[in-house]
């Protein structure tokens, strides 16, 4: 089958500029010791416009190759299209890659800005995202936990992207239950150096022909360490050992046994990696070896990177949903079909049909909610890492813990619903690979699965985050929304929205109460956790959107309807109003569901699924 178009990258910078310049107080970040004297709010427009241009002109052209040519696997080597290499090095050489995680790099940008830009770069070609996105997290682990020698040997090349990186957790018999891994680390004569033996699977970018070396961050159990997650340690395992000059040296017995054939992200090599087939693979321990209690630091260390990858997954889903949204809006404005209810005499563009407009509004409101919660979370990362205000740092740390599973799961699950609506707008053409949305739908399907499935995120929220410090942290998080409602409920023009938001909050608390009543019964939390996370996402999204709408409303009053930017601000108000009136009330229905204390899932015999 010859396809003419697999992707048509579209996005704008307007909402990102609003978030960074009008909503979040980026001066608080730019004025920290880390960023003082560097970028300022005045630079944001140019940086964002420039990044979008780069995404469009330098990265997006490779998207069709990634999807249609895909990857070749020959003699243990993965061969990528030339456009993949071009895209990778454009991102690295233009300062969009791991250099932003380098604490010494004066041109590094705050994470809030970096991830606003990543929405463009991921949306332009999601396949190659897996090849460059792991670099900053992996380098961060070496920076935080590596010996001076490891830092000296690896960091500069990892930050620059000259050497790519991966995270290696999953094994054929240990996925979500990572503590069951069987990869071994056998001590050598040299302290901190181990022989690694084991097989990892689903390793994104585990093998490729783009960079001269690949640095695997692999979990393995040192002989004699405790069983389960407790005894796991983390190792730097390069494909090629660096020589005395720090350049690529001997092969380190890291072999790719094969790549997956997937429904999406076809240009991203998802590899099975064998460490030590010839018993000749060296790994370099990060941090301390397990002591007498057999406890390794590996999982704790890996989670530092994993949390960033989880936020990445949420943003990636949103990034692809944004591309689908902009494409479907343009298509709806051009495609003439049928007659609108308001003017049945003439054939109309389908954007004039109410249900098409509903689907566009559904996408727009959700994408703006996802973007708001994702970038607000990266803002907390910047504050937590760089602010000198101890109280603010403490608060950011707590909110970061709560927000991470919500951003990962709510955004990645919801992105699929948004892309599905975009596809529906295209009608039959949406199902056709000649139009751009089909690929986006296929590509985005991975995000609810990887980096800890969305069920794991839900259990993390319900089981860990909601109960942190006996529930105090989550109560504080909820109270911030309640306090916001109290402070703004009389805002002119938004009385109805705040009334519904308060009702949504009441429903949420009712849901919590109903959940509490059934939590003791085994299996109950598990069957409702995903829906609890979605309810939390809806409440949080509604709060953020109306907060933005208050700013937009002021702007409209200031600029008037004739101003060139009126449509943007009117759109922000519409997003909040639509989300609050149409999406938020779904929490009430779920609170009712919980009252039923339904045990069907627990009681139904498994045999019913096989009849």
């Amino acid at each position, binding site marked *: 089958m010859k396809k003419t178009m697999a992707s048509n990258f579209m996005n704008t910078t307007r909402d990102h500029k609003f978030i960074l310049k009008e909503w979040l107080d980026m001066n608080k970040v730019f004025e920290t010791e880390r960023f003082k004297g*560097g*970028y*300022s709010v*005045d*630079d944001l*427009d*140019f*940086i964002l416009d*420039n990044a979008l*241009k*780069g995404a469009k*002109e*330098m990265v997006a052209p490779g998207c069709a190759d990634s999807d249609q040519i895909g990857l070749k696997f020959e003699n243990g080597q993965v061969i990528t299209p030339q456009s993949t290499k071009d895209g990778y090095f454009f991102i690295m*050489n*233009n*300062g*969009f890659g791991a250099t932003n995680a380098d604490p010494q790099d*004066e*041109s590094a*940008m705050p994470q809030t800005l970096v991830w606003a830009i990543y929405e463009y770069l991921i949306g332009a070609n999601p396949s190659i995202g897996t090849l460059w996105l792991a670099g900053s997290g992996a380098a961060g682990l070496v920076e935080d936990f590596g010996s001076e020698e490891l830092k000296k040997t690896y960091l500069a090349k990892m930050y620059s992207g000259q050497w790519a990186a991966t995270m290696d957790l999953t094994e054929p018999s240990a996925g979500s239950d990572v503590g069951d891994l069987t990869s071994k680390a056998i001590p050598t004569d040299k302290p901190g150096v181990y022989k690694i033996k084991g097989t990892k699977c689903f390793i994104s970018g585990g093998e490729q022909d783009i960079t001269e070396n690949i640095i695997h961050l692999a979990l393995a159990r040192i002989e004699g360490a405790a069983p389960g997650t407790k005894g796991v340690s983390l190792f730097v395992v390069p494909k090629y050992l660096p020589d005395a000059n720090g350049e690529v040296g001997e092969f380190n017995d890291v072999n790719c046994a094969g790549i997956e054939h997937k429904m999406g992200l076809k240009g991203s090599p998802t590899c099975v990696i064998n460490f030590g087939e010839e018993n000749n693979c060296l790994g370099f321990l990060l941090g301390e070896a397990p002591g007498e209690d057999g406890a390794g630091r590996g999982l704790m260390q890996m989670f530092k990177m994993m949390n960033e990858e989880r936020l990445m997954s949420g943003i990636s889903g949103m990034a692809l949903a944004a591309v689908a949204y902009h494409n479907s809006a343009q298509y709806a404005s051009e495609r003439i079909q049928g007659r609108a209810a308001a003017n049945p005499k003439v054939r109309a563009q389908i954007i004039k049909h109410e249900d098409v407009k509903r689907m566009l509004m559904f996408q727009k409101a959700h994408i703006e909610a996802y973007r708001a919660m994702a970038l607000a979370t990266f803002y907390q990362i910047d504050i937590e890492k760089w602010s000198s205000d101890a109280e603010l740092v403490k608060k950011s740390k707590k909110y970061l813990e709560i927000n991470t599973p919500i951003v990962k799961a709510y955004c990645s699950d919801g992105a699929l619903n948004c892309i599905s609506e975009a596809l529906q707008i295209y009608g039959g053409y949406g199902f056709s690979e000649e139009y751009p949305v089909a690929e986006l739908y296929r590509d985005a399907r991975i995000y609810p699965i990887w980096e800890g499935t969305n069920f794991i995120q839900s259990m993390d929220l319900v089981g860990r985050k909601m109960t942190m410090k006996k529930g105090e942290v989550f109560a504080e998080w909820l109270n911030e929304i309640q306090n916001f409602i109290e402070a703004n409920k009389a805002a002119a023009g938004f009385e109805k929205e705040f009334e519904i938001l308060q009702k949504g909050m009441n429903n949420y608390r009712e849901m919590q109460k109903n959940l509490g009543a059934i939590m003791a019964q085994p299996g109950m939390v598990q069957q409702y956790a995903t829906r609890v996370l979605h309810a939390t996402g809806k409440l949080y999204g509604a709060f953020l959107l109306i907060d933005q709408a208050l700013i937009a409303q002021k702007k409209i009053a200031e*600029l008037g309807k*004739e*101003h*060139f*930017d009126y*449509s943007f601000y009117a759109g922000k108000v519409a997003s909040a109003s639509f989300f609050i009136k149409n999406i938020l009330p779904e929490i009430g229905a779920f609170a009712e569901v919980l009252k039923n204390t339904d045990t069907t899932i627990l009681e139904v015999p498994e045999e019913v699924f096989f009849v």
Partner: protein
Amino acid sequence: MNIIVAMKQVPDLQQVRIRNREPVIEGVPYTLGIIDKNALEAGIQLKEATGSNLIVVSAGNEEVEETIKEALAAGADEAYLVLDDKLDGMESSLTASLLAATIKKIEEVGLVIFGEGSGDNYSGQVGSRVAEILDLPQVGYVSKIELDGTTAKITRSLEDCEELLEVQLPMVVTVLGDINEPRIPSVSQILKAGRKPKEILELDDLDIEIPKDKKISTLSNLAPETDRKRVAVKSVSDLITALQAEGFVGR
């Protein structure tokens, strides 16, 4: 040698909305003209090839100081800017006088590069006017520039031929939009752009007065009408006749 690139700040056309066939320009953010960016890229490539110093010159309202960062990030070494809010909407003759006076303040000028026309009104006059004021040779429709010591080899792309010229430096060129593909600056270059030297000039520094009355006034600035003709036909032969009448078939 100094290579000069003249650039004009224009409203970002992608943000301009059309209401009642009139462009809504008020408040629209500024950017640099599209072909001006090609002129800049040509200057950067020549700078890289010859080790010259690259200076951008521009005149306009106070916003120019911010807008010009884009050129400094892309590779210009410094900027000479004439700033005054009275310069909004100035006509080509005044722009040329200001730019020429600014260029006169720069020593060892070897080449002055303009885009063939600006991103807003595209009068296409400023390059030629500056060459006249500075008494320099000027070549238009330029698609290739090579510098060789004291001369330049210039390719002009004309409608049905290419003309190759050798011109003594210093000189003025106006380049075409397809001469190159402007580069995308890295973020570190954007950071450095804010620290590059800028020479801010006022009208008094140039000894130029703004004329009280404009010689050219814009009476209207309407988007072309695009309404369909709504021709109804009753048969295929009527359709063919209508298409022939419009010159779409049977030419």
